């Protein structure tokens, strides 16, 4: 065995080794990856949809509820990723919590969930382009939007962490300028007062329902960065500042602009616009520099979200194939190190959105996902907290009270979202149950899946957690 002094000299983390051209992700890159993933153009239409149902007042209340949940989730994630800093993220936490299949369903299930977000993205982009170029057949737009992004991804020209940072800064600037213009020239007291109250009846569940809808476009902001944990250059700073500031960046980009939009026209008029930010500008000042600015911001956002969808979720599907749960071909990588079969599957899935246009159903189903996601995260935290054999036990202050609060709060939110559209709720929970049964019962009985499961659940044998 090595002597005590050599043990001190040897850096188990490998931080002492300088790699050529590494360009590890700093905390700001980590922050931008989260924002980049959430740059949904459809996000603005989603907020207008919430406001059109409940008015500005309840939309603000729901935003505050969502922000509380995100901060609590960050507090729990912060501790879990410190104990288990693995790219498997939710799946790894679930493994340690003894709930492997539930964690897997929410980890791998993010691929179709993100795909359903892309359905909304496709619909708003299709609506916008059709209004700009009515002479082009409407059915062509989904293909015109998706195929170039798929081609770029297949060629290996993916949006990487560093490129993402540049794109996010560009959209932050674009939306920042647009927000200032909209506030100065379009917003007024008349529309603010008109849109303030709720057009729908309000009861005790309303704040929870609205919070649930908000979490629908907030969930995901903290998750993708954790998959890239091995590439973080400064773990404490990326975890404490990078993760949480992603949420603040998203809100900084979204809230000022959407607040101005909600005070610029009646909600009924805004709610029929595919991309309210762009179409508001066109309706008020026509095509010009401001219109070009918001249009370019939207195009970058659309490209970024689709590209991250194909890059990140393609790898998740390939990963699940490697776990023996999907046919081997899905895990096939090309010579450009791209999971090309998974990307083509995801592209086909995203294109379904061009033909499935029941937006309200999709939004309700996604809200069921997001509300239950943080319920599961709190459950995983409590499961890990109970484990006494973790090399690095969970010990953060207020961890259990925060997890219990999230558990109860998100349970009520999930209930209120469920009853707002029970069919979408049943569809979501049936999908999760089917996934869990498949992962827990069928996959371990296959040759590859059984071997994988036996090895991945093997007890760790070293204090360095490798």
């Amino acid at each position, binding site marked *: 065995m*090595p002597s005590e002094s*050599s*043990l001190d000299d*040897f850096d*188990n*983390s*490998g931080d002492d*080794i300088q*790699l*050529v*051209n*590494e*360009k*590890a*992700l700093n905390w700001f890159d980590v922050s931008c990856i989260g924002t980049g993933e959430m740059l949904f153009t459809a996000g603005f239409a989603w907020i207008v949809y919430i406001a059109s149902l409940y008015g500005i007042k309840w939309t603000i209340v729901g935003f505050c509820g969502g922000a509380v949940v995100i901060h609590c989730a960050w507090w729990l994630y912060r501790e879990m990723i410190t104990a*288990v800093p*693995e*790219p*498997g993220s939710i799946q*790894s936490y679930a493994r340690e919590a003894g709930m492997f299949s539930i964690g897997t369903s929410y980890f791998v299930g993010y691929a179709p969930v993100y795909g359903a977000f892309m359905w909304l993205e496709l619909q708003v982009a299709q609506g916008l382009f059709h209004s700009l170029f009515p002479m082009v057949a409407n059915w062509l737009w989904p293909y015109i939007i998706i195929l170039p992004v798929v081609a770029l991804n297949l060629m290996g020209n993916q949006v*990487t*962490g*560093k490129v993402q940072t540049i794109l996010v800064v560009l959209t932050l600037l674009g939306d920042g300028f647009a927000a200032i213009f909209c506030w100065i020239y379009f917003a007024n007291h008349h529309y603010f007062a008109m849109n303030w109250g709720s057009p729908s009846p309000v009861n005790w569940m309303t704040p929870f329902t609205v919070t649930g809808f908000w979490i629908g476009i907030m969930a995901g902001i903290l998750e993708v960065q954790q998959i890239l944990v*091995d*590439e973080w250059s400064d773990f404490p700073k990326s975890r404490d500042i990078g993760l949480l500031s992603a949420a603040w960046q998203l809100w900084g980009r979204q809230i000022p602009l959407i607040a101005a939009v909600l005070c610029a026209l009646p909600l009924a008029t805004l709610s029929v616009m595919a991309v309210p930010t762009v179409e508001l500008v066109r309706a008020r000042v026509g095509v010009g520099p401001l219109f070009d600015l918001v249009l370019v911001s939207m195009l970058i956002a659309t490209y970024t979200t689709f590209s991250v969808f194909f890059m990140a979720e393609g790898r998740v599907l*390939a*990963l699940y194939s*490697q*776990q023996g749960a999907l046919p*081997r071909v899905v*895990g096939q*990588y090309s*010579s450009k*190190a*791209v*999971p090309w079969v998974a990307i083509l599957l995801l592209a086909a899935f995203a294109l379904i959105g061009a033909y499935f246009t029941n937006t309200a159903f999709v939004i309700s189903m996604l809200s069921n996902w997001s509300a239950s996601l943080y319920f599961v995260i709190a459950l995983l935290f409590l499961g890990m907290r109970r484990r006494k054999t973790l090399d690095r036990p969970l010990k953060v202050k207020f961890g259990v009270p925060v997890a219990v609060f999230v558990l109860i709060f998100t349970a009520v939110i999930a209930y209120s979202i469920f009853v707002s559209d029970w069919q979408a709720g049943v569809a979501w929970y049936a999908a999760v149950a089917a996934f869990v049964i498949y992962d827990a019962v069928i996959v371990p009985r296959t040759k*590859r899946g059984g*071997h*994988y499961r036996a*090895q*991945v659940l*093997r007890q*760790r*044998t*070293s204090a*360095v*957690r*490798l």
Partner: protein
Amino acid sequence: MAQTAAYEYLPKPQALSAEYMREVLDQYYLRKWNPNKETVISVRSWKDWPMIVRMPDLQKDFTVMIHEGVVTGVTEGQAPQPRILTIMLGETMQRIYYDETTSAIELIAGRIKVRGNETERRRMLAAISYLTW
């Protein structure tokens, strides 16, 4: 996994040593990595690139030289200007060598960490993924 073991393994020692592990790595890359066309293609752009394999339980580093995707040699210690860093326990490598598990599974399980340039790291992950089957 038995069908992949059509060769003699090194005998398992009582305790891991650096020389034994160098032999294990050498044989692993010779028998598993180099004959795997997809793995080699994934990193064929690497021309005389050193990859460091760090084993915290052994307190040792090894350098794996890769040229056009093919591993040309394994030596103890660190070569200058490494491109990729892989951290795993010697015990994990031993299990992979004896076909009890695979490097792809251990990577997913978080028992292998890979650091490097974002693009090259992706290539490395793709290369490892082909070592699943």
